[in-house]
């Protein structure tokens, strides 16, 4: 349908408004993170930084070592950043690998209990995490796994497996069976077919499952608040701690926020196609 000029102007005004709503708060955090603390309370407000500083990032990353209230912020921050990366990556790798193997079995292999097992696993999508949190806590204490990477990774895997499995099975189902049958006639074994034919073809689906798992694990708060309180503390648990003191250091908060934004932002910018397809498979089906 042809679009008249006034109509197009209206659309672009609407889009501009939508972009300001979506990106404005993120812009403000990034802009504040390079603004000197002394400029923060300037009135009338400056929408663009008037002076540039890397002071907040230096304090956060320990470039010019500075101490706040006797606590070395940068040591905490560096280890929290590392902890976030480790736990999110480990959960993603294991979760997608386990879901891919199982998803293939649920799609192509006949074994006793296949249907009830699949339904039981996928049905847990409807159960919120906190319904199992307290027994998990006692279990993890019993196993001495509170505040360990193994413990937190196991919990993330169990939390994100159902969605990854659901997504990957629908991907496997959409692959042409003829290809696998031809390989089978040529004498290829099941595992050869899985690793050499099915998984390469399912790469977009694997990417989507990996993105959803990674973002999910990267953004978790309540779970690491309970299960990763000190040694394996991730960014999401550390950042609010900057805000619970009597004096709230917004320079540190916005700088730390900016760093926590970078990783999801890269994923969205470069992998948005897979992310959107994964979101749709996870929610619409």
């Amino acid at each position: 349908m042809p679009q008249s000029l006034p109509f197009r102007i209206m659309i672009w005004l609407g889009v501009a408004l939508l972009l300001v709503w979506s990106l404005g708060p993120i812009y403000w955090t990034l802009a504040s993170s390079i603004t000197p603390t002394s400029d923060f309370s300037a009135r009338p407000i400056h929408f663009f930084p008037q002076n540039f500083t890397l002071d907040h990032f230096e304090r956060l990353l320990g470039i010019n070592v500075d101490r706040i209230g006797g606590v070395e912020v940068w040591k905490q921050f560096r280890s929290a950043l590392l902890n976030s990366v480790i736990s999110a990556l480990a959960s993603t790798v294991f979760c997608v690998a386990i879901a891919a193997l199982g998803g293939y079995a649920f799609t192509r292999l006949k074994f006793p209990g296949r249907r009830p097992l699949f339904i039981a696993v996928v049905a847990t999508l409807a159960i919120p995490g906190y319904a199992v949190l307290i027994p998990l806590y006692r279990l993890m204490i019993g196993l001495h796994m509170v505040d360990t990477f193994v413990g937190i990774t196991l919990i993330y895997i169990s939390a994100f497996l159902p969605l990854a499995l659901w997504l990957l099975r629908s991907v496997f189902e959409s692959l042409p069976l003829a290809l696998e049958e031809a390989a089978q006639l040529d004498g290829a074994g099941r595992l050869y077919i899985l690793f050499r034919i099915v998984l390469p073809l399912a790469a977009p689906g694997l990417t989507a499952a990996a993105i959803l798992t990674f973002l999910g694990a990267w953004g978790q708060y309540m779970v690491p608040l309970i299960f990763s309180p000190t040694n394996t503390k991730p960014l999401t648990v550390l950042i609010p701690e900057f805000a619970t003191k009597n004096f709230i250091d917004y320079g540190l908060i916005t700088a730390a926020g900016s760093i926590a934004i970078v990783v999801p932002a890269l994923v969205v910018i470069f992998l948005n196609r897979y992310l959107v397809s994964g979101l749709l498979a996870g929610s619409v089906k």
Partner: protein
Amino acid sequence: MTAVTAITIEKKRGAASNGDAVLGLILVAPIVLTMAALVFFPLVDTVWDSLHRINPMQPGTPFVGVANYTNMLSDADLGRSWINTFIYVAIAVFAETVFGILAAALINQVRVGRQWILAAVVLPWALPGVVNAVIWMWIYQPGAGLLNGILTVLGLPFDNHVWFNDRASAIVAVSVVHIWRMMPLTIVIVLAAMQSIPDHLYEAARIDGAGRLKMFTAITLPLISPAIAIAMTNGTVAAFNFFDEAWVLTGASLDTRPVLIQIYLETFQNLHFSYGMALSLVVTVVSLLVSLIYVLRVYRSTRFE
């Protein structure tokens, strides 16, 4: 490690007749083990323990029947947090649905650069809830925040206005943060449904002389209504599970406390483990009832052979 355990389990069970069945069981064993140990066992444990008194500060775990459940009825703080949660659900689902459909309709009209607009719109959803909370905490900041800064530039008397001082504005402020994070999901779902509507329907309507508004109400809305239902259910469940933003922005404040924070406080601060478990079961059941439509959809499309 899990693979090895899986194989030994398999050998004990032994008698699988064909190779596919054995391989199938081996491949799903990691899933079954993980889910059994970390989801199904804890879930059964939650139900069982919610009928006992479990408190690390008190000896023994006596059976107390449904006392944990009946105690909820006289728990005033819990009542207030339920009310807060229902307010969050109402505000969030309404705003996400109305503005989400509007935004999706807008993006659907864009011809160039649509994927970049979509990427920008999805970004808030991809960020950790905690980061969203601190982004907005800085915006709401009374003395130096962006919101008061803008309002003051517009000539309004909002210099040093504190948004979390009264209940109504605090709840709205916290809801906005949640809506900012969850609306992208509605937009993605609704936009996908809009894009699946065949062009010839609009062509036919145009030949019949229908205007844009008429097309939207007569063609678009009816055809995207299943997607709207799904988006609303997702939004409802997300609002029931609301924790991160409320906890970071307002902590334990009773004015804004949703039920999930109530569970967290009862369990990990008051150490009323079994009361917390009973509470989390009730919240689960309520959110399950509300999301029943969603679950039914999942089952319906889960067909084998």
